[in-house]
């Protein structure tokens, strides 16, 4: 049965993992956003021997489970600490999603903008940096934000490679004190309290940018 006392004692333990959860989300998102952008731009080069392998790899990463990717990376890349490895895998996994988001955002930049750049004979680098990307990135911010929220909710997967994030701590506390009910309820509450306000904010941002 639920015991308030156990819950009060367990709360600091569960929260002690929250820092790692946040760190993994922030760094993982940074990797996903940068790598996704690089991937999206690379996929637009006209050389097929560049785009074809990239497309196959991205498709493979996107449609296979994160949990097994974590396991596989854990045994295949020795010498890295679990958190670094977890962040890298999380970031690469989500980059295959953000890449699609950027692609749609880049496609949404009016053709006239490209033509104007050609007419001004701007170098390719400047076309991307000064004209296309600023417009594309503004359009895709809300969609990227949604992926950050869903990554936040997938960080517990990192516990399979023994990263001490929040759910890992909750699970440990639960098994030691036989307090699974309190531990997992607390973890769920923290997720809800953190992710709900963020998704409300994202929805508002989406509406404002849509105007």
């Amino acid at each position, binding site marked *: *049965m*639920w015991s308030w006392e156990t819950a009060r004692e367990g709360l600091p333990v569960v929260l002690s993992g929250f820092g790692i959860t946040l760190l993994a989300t922030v760094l993982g998102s940074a990797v996903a956003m940068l790598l996704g952008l690089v991937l999206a731009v690379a996929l637009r080069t006209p050389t097929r021997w560049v785009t074809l392998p990239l497309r196959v790899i991205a498709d*493979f990463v996107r*449609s*296979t*489970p*994160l*949990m*097994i*990717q974590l*396991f*596989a990376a854990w*045994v*295949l890349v020795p010498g890295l600490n679990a958190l670094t490895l977890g962040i890298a895998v999380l970031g690469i996994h989500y980059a295959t999603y953000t890449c699609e988001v950027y692609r749609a955002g880049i496609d949404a930049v009016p053709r006239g903008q490209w033509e104007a750049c050609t007419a001004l004979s701007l170098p390719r680098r400047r076309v991307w940096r000064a004209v296309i990307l600023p417009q594309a990135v503004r359009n895709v911010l809300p969609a990227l934000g949604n992926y950050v929220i869903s990554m936040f*909710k*997938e960080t*517990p*997967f990192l516990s*399979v490679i023994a990263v001490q994030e929040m*759910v890992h701590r*909750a*699970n440990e506390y*639960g098994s030691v004190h036989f307090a*699974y*009910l309190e*531990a*997992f*309820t607390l*973890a*769920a*509450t923290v*997720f*809800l309290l953190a*992710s*709900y306000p963020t*998704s409300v904010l994202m929805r508002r941002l989406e509406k404002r940018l849509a105007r």
Partner: protein
Amino acid sequence: MTGFFEEFVHALPSVGEGVAVTLLATALSAAVALIVAFAFGLLTRSTRLLVRGPSRFTVEFFRGTSLYVQLFWLFFALPVLGFRLEPMACAVVAFGLNFGAYGSEVVRGALEAVPRTQWEAAVALGMSPRQRMIRVVMPQAWVQMIPPFGNLLIQLLKATPLLSLITIADLTFEMDQLRSLTGSTAQAYLAVLVIYYAIAAVLNSFMRAAESAAKTRLGQDPGGS
């Protein structure tokens, strides 16, 4: 590599069973999720606050609390309260509610995307609310729902390795057995990833077929290219 391959061929029956368990969990969860998605997609559109409020809360609850935690809560915490569910039931309930909550947003969005004039025309023709929904609005909304539903289905499939954490002998579990038997860790994980990729590809082509069938029925995209 040859050692692993021989063992793999040898273990094919149990790997096959693992695939069957994974597919069963995916299918059952998807069915529950579809029902939940439609129920809450319609309820959150209600004009009555007493209906809309609680259903919005439920959807936000299941979207906001992480699937991983929900599954572990059902498996580890619920027995403390005196209810014990079979592991597979835990999985189906957790996946069904979580993905159903995401799906309900898809249903809601698709219904809202059907042009207002379609509703108005149905009213002008004197159709009952039921007829309006079934004959006019839903067939158009359905076409829009299939691609996001397809994405959710793949997400659901990708969440099934969690089954192995709650003692279910799914594909991941069987491969893990094979891995410890052969010691060929890399090959075993590669094999699981490839099998998952193949299943995802099949599900994708299935959803694409469903989409073009729904479009043809609507008179869009004749022939279903």
